[in-house]
């Protein structure tokens, strides 16, 4: 009995959170999205202890920040959520004076429409959502642009993201509009286009579309480049296409939420992540693209030369970042429900 009590007392002691505010940092991020060694080196250099907690989607993170509101010092929302959280006053402005390494960022990743001037957000990683095609089953000429997805031969062989914004991006780009379109007339056009595409779709999957591509269940999929990178490593026939009509870019940024206690430590960490050597480690470990221009020279050749990770500049020009669309989001969702239920 005594032993049990002792064990319980120990557990209680271990579980009681230390008081925040001095030499600590609470980072809220996707699992495995930052290499352990980067965090350990930071603690070694600065003495600041980093606590990681994780979320599985932007929606979940947003709900937790909005409801709980405190306890987290840094979050990593995607671009549209930066826009949303900025509009709802859930973010604190960054102190640029403390970010001496800000200049290392490449110009094409700063001052984006979702956060002009980067008042609230720092780019962490970026990538694209585009078309992965199995040239083994379809041949090399079958899919070169978005319009090709509508071809009858794609019947039942296509995978789409389970996400209204990403699906609409295809139709909007095909029609020559912005993927942040809010005009109802244009959205209706896009909806009608997508309606024609529905018979081609076999799977909706945003979580692990590489599985369906690799197992041969689908021959062509609209996926994000991290998935395409893995699929291509396993099966070189799976190629990644940046269509001429344009495509969707994604970016995860670091932000300080309202209610953060350790603002000083957060800035120290942000500045550390902006260092070229650190950004290079992150990019090579994760196989994702860094927005840090100075880090590029330090990244291993095989990663930097891979167009799935680092597309050519001419291709990047055609990409567009998602912004938060306010009320228009409802329209997207309504059309999306219609698309998925009308068949």
């Amino acid at each position: 009995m005594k032993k049990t009590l002792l064990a319980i007392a120990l557990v209680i002691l271990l579980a009681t959170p230390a008081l925040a505010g001095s030499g600590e940092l609470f980072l809220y991020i996707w699992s495995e999205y930052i290499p352990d060694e980067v965090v350990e080196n930071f603690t070694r250099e600065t003495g600041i202890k980093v606590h990681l907690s994780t979320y599985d989607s932007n929606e979940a993170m947003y709900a937790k920040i909005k409801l709980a509101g405190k306890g987290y010092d840094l979050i990593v929302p995607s671009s549209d959520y930066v826009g949303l959280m900025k509009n709802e006053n859930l973010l604190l402005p960054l102190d640029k004076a403390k970010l001496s390494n800000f200049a290392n960022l490449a110009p094409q990743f700063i001052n984006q429409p979702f956060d002009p001037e980067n008042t609230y957000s720092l780019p962490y990683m970026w990538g694209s959502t585009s078309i992965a095609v199995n040239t083994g089953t379809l041949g090399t000429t079958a899919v070169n642009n978005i319009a090709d997805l509508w071809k009858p031969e794609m019947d039942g062989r296509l995978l789409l993201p389970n996400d209204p914004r990403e699906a609409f991006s295809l139709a909007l780009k095909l029609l020559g509009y912005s993927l942040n379109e809010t005009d109802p007339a244009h959205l209706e056009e896009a909806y009608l286009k997508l309606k024609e595409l529905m018979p081609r779709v076999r799977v909706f999957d945003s979580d692990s579309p590489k599985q369906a591509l690799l197992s041969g269940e689908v021959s062509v999929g609209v996926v994000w480049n991290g998935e395409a990178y893995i699929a291509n490593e396993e099966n070189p026939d799976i190629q990644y296409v940046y269509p001429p009509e344009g495509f969707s870019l994604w970016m995860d940024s670091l932000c300080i939420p309202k209610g953060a206690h350790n603002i000083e430590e957060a800035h120290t960490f942000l500045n550390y992540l902006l260092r070229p050597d650190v950004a290079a480690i992150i990019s090579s470990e994760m196989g994702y693209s860094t927005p840090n221009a100075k880090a590029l020279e330090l990244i291993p050749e095989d990663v930097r030369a891979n167009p799935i990770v680092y597309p050519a500049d001419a291709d990047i020009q055609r990409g567009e970042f998602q912004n938060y669309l306010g009320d228009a989001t409802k329209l997207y969702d309504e059309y999306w429900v219609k698309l998925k239920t009308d068949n």
Partner: protein
Amino acid sequence: MRQLIKTTYAGLVYLFLYLPLVVMAVYSFNASKYSLSWKGFTLKWYGKLLTNTTLIDAAIRSLTIAVISATIACILGTLVAFMLHQYRFQGRRAIFGSLFIMMMSPDIVIGISLLVLFLATGLTLGFWTLLMGHVTLCVPFVAATVYSRFKGFDTHVIEAAKDLGASEYQVFHQIVLPMAMPGLIAGWLLSFTLSLDDVIISFFTTGPTYEVLPLRIYSMVRLGIKPDVNALSVVMIVITVAAVLLSRRLIKDKK
């Protein structure tokens, strides 16, 4: 012939239940990183797991909370079940109903309502709030399993004990508890599993200082689940099976 059908059927049921676990165990030794095709035998994921302290920490935290919340839920749940079985009082039906409502409620409703409650009372989210959340989740299940066990009781035994001068406490301790034991053990194991698996309630009720394993694994969607998670799952299954076997041995020895 009938025997053959029976055996085949039972075999199929077991196959259906355990095949996924076997596949996962096999893949935890697969050299290929994305575990789609077999690329040779390796132990490197177990090595990786040893260095992945954040994952191991989360696993230890998960096991800790599961053991503590299952134990507390067992104590509370058994008391509730005994009360419902033994006494007739005002509001008994309401308590009954509320237990079933708790069992039927979607996790997300329980999670958000608990979070709102914790925030309203000004508690810091962390170990304690998570523990309360998991106990809340488990109590109805324990109460239901133990109550159904009481249902099969011969209540005359209790009456006889009272006639022979046993106090309420003695009745509970020496008659009710031993009889309820199988239900209690089942309730404990069920609670342990519920707590270990739970994602949604944990997400809402825990804070940045106490992150549990399911949340860690769930949040890997962005980059894909790595094979060291398979390795960790195999280790956890081995621990669980060993614990069950050991407890059975202990119970047998007692008898």
